[in-house]
């Protein structure tokens, strides 16, 4: 009987790892019976799995410094919460990873908000009265001040207690200066945004919520992928070099 499936390295490895469905595993066995080269490949994968497992048997020890820090964090956490009560919380409709994934993906997409052109970062102490899409955080007037002066890679703590990390500067195809930053509110929520300098005002072009409590549903990485995609399709080049960035900031009004 002729092979219907090509016996790729991937299939042979999956067979050696016991990760092929039965029907496919039988096909591999049949093909291997008459083919010493396939047998050799399978044994390579079996043997590497065995050796890697043996090498992994002993974990590198956790340094005392790290172990101490973690145990301090856990003690602080225990003091904050009420463990017996938390342990009794029955998860509401527990779902498998498989069923969570599409929901998480969908959520991360809706988190990427293209900000309408009308929204401006309130300049110098005049917060917008109606922040668009409830993005109250971006109405913080100190953001605009920091964007006009701070070098990329620097962090500053604003009067509201929030931390502003200026990540990078770019220019778009029209030579408009744009800056990527992340704004971490005191409650741990975080917004990554890109604002561009238009008519002497910083206007947010995109804002992505990346709050830490969404970590478990994996929004941050995928939503940042969305940001990368957006940056890639918006005509921005590579981040500006520090000297070039400084020059552009100095010429702002």
């Amino acid at each position, binding site marked *: 009987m002729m092979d219907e499936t090509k016996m790729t390295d991937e299939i042979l490895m999956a067979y050696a790892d016991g990760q092929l469905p039965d029907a496919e595993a039988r096909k591999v066995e049949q093909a291997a019976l008459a083919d010493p080269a396939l047998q050799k490949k399978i044994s390579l994968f079996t043997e590497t799995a065995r050796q890697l497992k*043996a090498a992994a048997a002993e974990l590198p020890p956790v340094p005392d410094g790290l172990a101490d820090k973690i145990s301090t964090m856990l003690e602080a956490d225990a003091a904050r919460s009420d463990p017996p009560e938390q342990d009794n919380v029955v998860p509401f409709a527990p779902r498998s990873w498989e069923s969570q994934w599409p929901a998480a993906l969908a959520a991360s997409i809706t988190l990427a908000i293209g900000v309408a052109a009308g929204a401006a970062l309130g300049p110098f102490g005049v917060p917008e009265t109606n922040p668009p899409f409830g993005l109250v955080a971006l109405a913080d007037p100190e953001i605009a001040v920091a964007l006009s002066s701070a070098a990329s890679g620097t962090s500053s703590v604003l009067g509201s207690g929030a931390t502003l990390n200026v990540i990078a500067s770019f220019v778009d195809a029209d030579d408009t200066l744009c800056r990527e930053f992340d704004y971490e509110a005191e409650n741990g929520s975080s917004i990554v945004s890109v604002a561009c300098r238009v008519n002497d005002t910083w206007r947010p072009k995109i804002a992505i919520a990346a709050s830490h409590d969404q970590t478990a549903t994996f929004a941050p990485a995928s939503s940042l992928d969305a940001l990368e995609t957006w940056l890639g399709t918006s005509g921005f080049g590579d981040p500006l070099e520090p000297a070039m960035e400084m020059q552009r900031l100095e010429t702002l009004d």
Partner: protein
Amino acid sequence: MPDSFHTALTEKLPNLRRFALSLCRSAHVADDLVQITVERALVARKSFDPASRIEFWLFRILRNAWIDMTRKQKVRGQELDIHDAPDLGGVDSHQGETRLMVANVLAAVQQLPLEQREVVVLVCFEELSYAEAAEVLNIPKGTIMSRLSRARTAIASKTGIN
């Protein structure tokens, strides 16, 4: 009364640290990553499904923390220190030939490109299924399989396994 979630976290610290080391190859950065992971896990605790394996959930948090970190590092033009690459193995109690093989295998893993190294650590060290590793790394299962088979072919030729 000990908190079972805290106990599970503590038990998985060595695994988290090894995964972190395989990503960044810097003890200092790996320790930071583990710390960030525990912080985020505590905040996100309610979203953990106790019926699932906690390390799977934690690896995913750690990987996302790593992406956040490298993304900022990349655009800030800073380089992570990869020169003090610590060993992925433990205190070696093996004897003779086995010991040499273990050292060779670990060295071969260290030399793999990051994209292959992280797959090897998750599947062959931490014993995640291909599908689980695909979810942690957010790439298709087929990509996991091609990276893993290339990695293992390379390890075999470096260490004389055939």
